[in-house]
């Protein structure tokens, strides 16, 4: 058995780069995801900058049309799959085990595997820049533009295979969280006593495992069309490009809920904390989340209203799409109810959460106008849609993520991000975001199509475009401020384990949390368990000011680090890489994956005599 387990001895310490490469600790994996997502945020942000600079003037020739296509394609693809999703997963990883009173996720090594496969997949897609064959058919890559001979170079193959690899990571991660949330809650934490963020994680994870297989099939069929001679989406041979659209959007619509539900969960944690009130209408918020998750499967063709599906299909999807606005509205009213007569603290985190609600409402309103298919006929493929999607994704998901970063940073590090810089950060983002994207409503209704690399001055779009590009500059500064804030926080003063006097279980332990999270698995008696415990202690005259006492880490059996996840992930990535270069590499990748799985299977979850 030892011989199979590998040449290398099992790692035992957390130290150094090797410690990070072999970690199975959810808190460290959260950091890995978060840092990676942030780097890609900067990359995709720069791509957006190129787009905005090109569009700032009419008849501009800063970059070629081909390069422009690459920029908007990669900007969107990176933002969706390599920024918002990993940011969400970073929060899932850090918060969920702590919030449910668990020591780690159900499958720590699978958790690590998900991260490494994601990273390698993202890198794989970016190799396309090194060989100058960058995906350029939009983030949704409609057939049959994506077929050869219309997209001859390997750009679309990088896109498809990169996504296939990253999709495997997402599914593996989501499977882990579904089992974790169902099966690792502390005693007494029934489903209806789970924090809303945990509920949203559960719903998002279920959506992930169900939606990704559909796009996997689409990507496989596209790759086969491009490389193995099939004609799934080629009309000349009887194929139907609309099938691609259906497969993509059956995935794509649940995907946008995957992108927004975590942010809604974060905001549902932030509001009660900084209103000093329990969340209003908890069951309604939970059930509306479930309803959104289910109904999200019934609306996908609203992305296809102008394709010619016919009046019956268009009407059905109009109705379902209008209906899905209702549960979101319910959430918003309940959030307002939480704020109502609360004792509001305008911390940075709270401001981002408030900003989320305001901007998401704007995005939701434009969304409702798209839901009605006749008006969508005018809006589709115009900048009006660009405005909508950025309000919900930037004003929604990104603002929510920032709310979460400012909220949980002290738990992760034991230090606080500067509130002054934080508020500056907030205002620059808020103003910059509105300046960039609000004019796009006008541009769209004035006829400016999406995905054009330039436009004539006589259309009269230049002024609004200038404004939008100016907004970008403000956003650029906003992110610089955030980086400065992160940097200076390294040397800021330490804060207590519970700086916000918050309701969640995660605040009852030390900051940063010890490797084992909870010395004693807590007993849960209700929602907002830590508030209950603190209230009871206050009433008894012995306020809880100290975190849970630390114990000797060796006394608690934690899963040991392992190099099999990163090893196996490399194998999976090589399978993908080989498809883009030489098939021999894929076989090598397959062999490595197989070896990884065998080694992994032979390795016990915790090294028997090792404690660390």
């Amino acid at each position, binding site marked *: 058995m030892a011989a199979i387990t590998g040449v290398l001895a099992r790692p035992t310490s957390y130290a150094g780069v090797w410690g990070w490469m072999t970690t199975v600790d959810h808190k460290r994996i959260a950091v890995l995801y978060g840092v990676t997502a942030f780097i890609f945020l900067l990359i995709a942000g720069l791509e957006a900058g190129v787009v905005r600079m090109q569009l700032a003037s009419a008849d501009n020739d800063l970059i070629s049309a081909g390069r422009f296509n690459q920029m908007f394609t990669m900007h969107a693809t990176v933002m969706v799959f390599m920024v918002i999703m990993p940011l969400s997963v970073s929060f899932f990883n850090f918060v969920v085990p702590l919030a449910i009173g668990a020591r780690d996720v159900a499958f720590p090594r699978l958790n690590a595997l998900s991260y490494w496969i994601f990273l390698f997949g993202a890198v794989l897609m970016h190799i396309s820049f090194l060989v100058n064959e960058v995906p350029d058919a939009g983030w949704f890559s409609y057939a049959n533009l994506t077929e050869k001979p219309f997209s001859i170079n390997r750009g679309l193959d990088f896109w498809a295979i990169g996504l296939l690899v990253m999709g495997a990571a997402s599914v593996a991660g989501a499977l882990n969280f579904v089992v974790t949330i*169902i099966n690792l809650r502390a005693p007494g934490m029934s489903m209806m006593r789970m924090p809303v963020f945990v509920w949203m994680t559960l719903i998002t994870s*279920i959506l992930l*495992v*169900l939606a990704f297989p*559909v796009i996997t099939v689409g990507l496989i069929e596209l790759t086969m069309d491009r490389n193995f001679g099939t004609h799934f989406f080629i*009309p*000349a041979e009887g194929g*139907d490009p*609309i*099938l691609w659209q*259906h497969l993509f959007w*059956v995935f794509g619509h649940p995907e946008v809920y995957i992108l927004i539900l975590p942010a809604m969960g974060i905001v549902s944690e932030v509001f009660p904390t900084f209103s000093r009130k329990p969340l209003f209408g908890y069951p309604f918020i939970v059930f509306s989340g479930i309803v959104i998750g289910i109904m999200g*499967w*019934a609306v996908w*063709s609203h992305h296809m209203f102008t394709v*010619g*599906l*016919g*009046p*019956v*299909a268009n009407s059905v999807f109009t109705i379902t799409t209008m209906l899905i606005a209702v549960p979101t509205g319910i959430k918003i009213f309940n959030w307002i109810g939480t704020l109502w007569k609360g004792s509001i603290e305008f911390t940075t985190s709270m401001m981002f959460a408030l900003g989320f609600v305001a901007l998401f409402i704007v995005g939701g309103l434009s969304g409702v106008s798209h839901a009605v298919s006749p008006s969508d006929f005018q809006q589709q493929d115009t900048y009006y849609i660009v405005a909508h999607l950025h309000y919900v994704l930037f004003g929604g998901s990104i603002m929510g993520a920032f709310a979460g970063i400012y909220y949980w940073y002290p738990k992760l590090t034991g230090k606080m991000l500067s509130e002054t810089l934080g508020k500056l950060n907030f205002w620059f983002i808020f103003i910059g975001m509105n300046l960039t994207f609000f004019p796009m409503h006008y541009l769209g209704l004035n006829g400016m199509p999406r995905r054009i690399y330039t436009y004539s001055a006589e259309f009269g779009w230049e002024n609004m475009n200038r404004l939008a590009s100016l907004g970008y500059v403000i956003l650029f500064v906003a992110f610089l401020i955030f980086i400065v804030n992160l940097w200076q926080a390294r040397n800021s003063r330490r804060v207590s384990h519970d700086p916000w006097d918050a309701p969640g279980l995660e605040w009852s332990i030390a900051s940063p949390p010890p490797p084992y999270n909870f010395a004693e698995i807590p007993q849960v008696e209700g929602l907002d368990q830590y508030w209950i415990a603190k209230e009871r202690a206050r009433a008894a005259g012995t306020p809880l000011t100290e975190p849970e006492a630390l114990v000797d880490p060796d006394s608690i059996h934690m899963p040991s680090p392992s190099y099999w996840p990163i090893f196996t992930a490399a194998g999976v990535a090589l399978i993908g890489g080989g498809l883009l270069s030489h098939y021999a590499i894929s076989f090598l990748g397959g062999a490595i994956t197989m070896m990884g799985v065998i080694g992994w299977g032979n390795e016990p979850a915790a090294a028997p005599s090792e404690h660390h």
Partner: protein
Amino acid sequence: MAHETEQDTHHPSFKQYVLIAIILFAITIVEFLLIWDRVGIVDYLGASKIPLLVGLSVVKFYIVIMFYMHLQFDDKLFTRIFIAGLALAFMVGLALLGLFSAMNGDQRSYALDRAVPYEEHEAAHATTTPGTGDTAGSETAPVAAGPIEVGAKGNELTFDTTSLTASSGSEVTITFTNPSTVNTHNLVIVEDGTKDAVSTDGTVAGPDNNWVKPGDSRVIANTILAGPGETQDVSFPAPAPGTYQFVCTFPGHNFTMFGDFVVN
């Protein structure tokens, strides 16, 4: 072979498993007989064979899940988890099928039936704007004795003229020069009002046929494909006097790249 005598109440016995296996085989045999033409049952069934076969398969499916996969005896949570995925897959699949066939007939023919031929608009505009002239150059090419020169407008998808004429009885030569840097075009002379239909059939015919269906009776003549910067010509005897059309049948170009060809 293990013979379970001490039964865990949650496991079927060996005999029960054998019985289940026999049932599964039997159902499969029945399914096979239902469609085997030598037995002839299928001829009596007609379309009702489909619900029958589906029903029998559902029974097999249920038996394997409930007994072999043990859902009958396990915690209901597992059943719910699996059914969630299964039900979703089933419903989305049905919805997709509906979108592709049942709702408005075949999606393709639905779109085709309702496609408004652009020549109708063309005619309407021609009567409402007499002689004031369009903004973009619609010069009338003179009745040509020599080759008729036609080009396209830069990288746009339009010819540089919307009207050509020729004399009946003459040998007509059209020289098409493609000034575009990215587009490929052709020039096809067709019967009046058929430009879109010819283009549709041309798309199916593919580039090897120069985007024109071989033997298409509506086509009077056509050039082969002219790539960026290329020139192609075609010569043909002028057809009977009347109005025809010329169009580029590269997929998608026919909507804006056409004109009238009048033979006097």
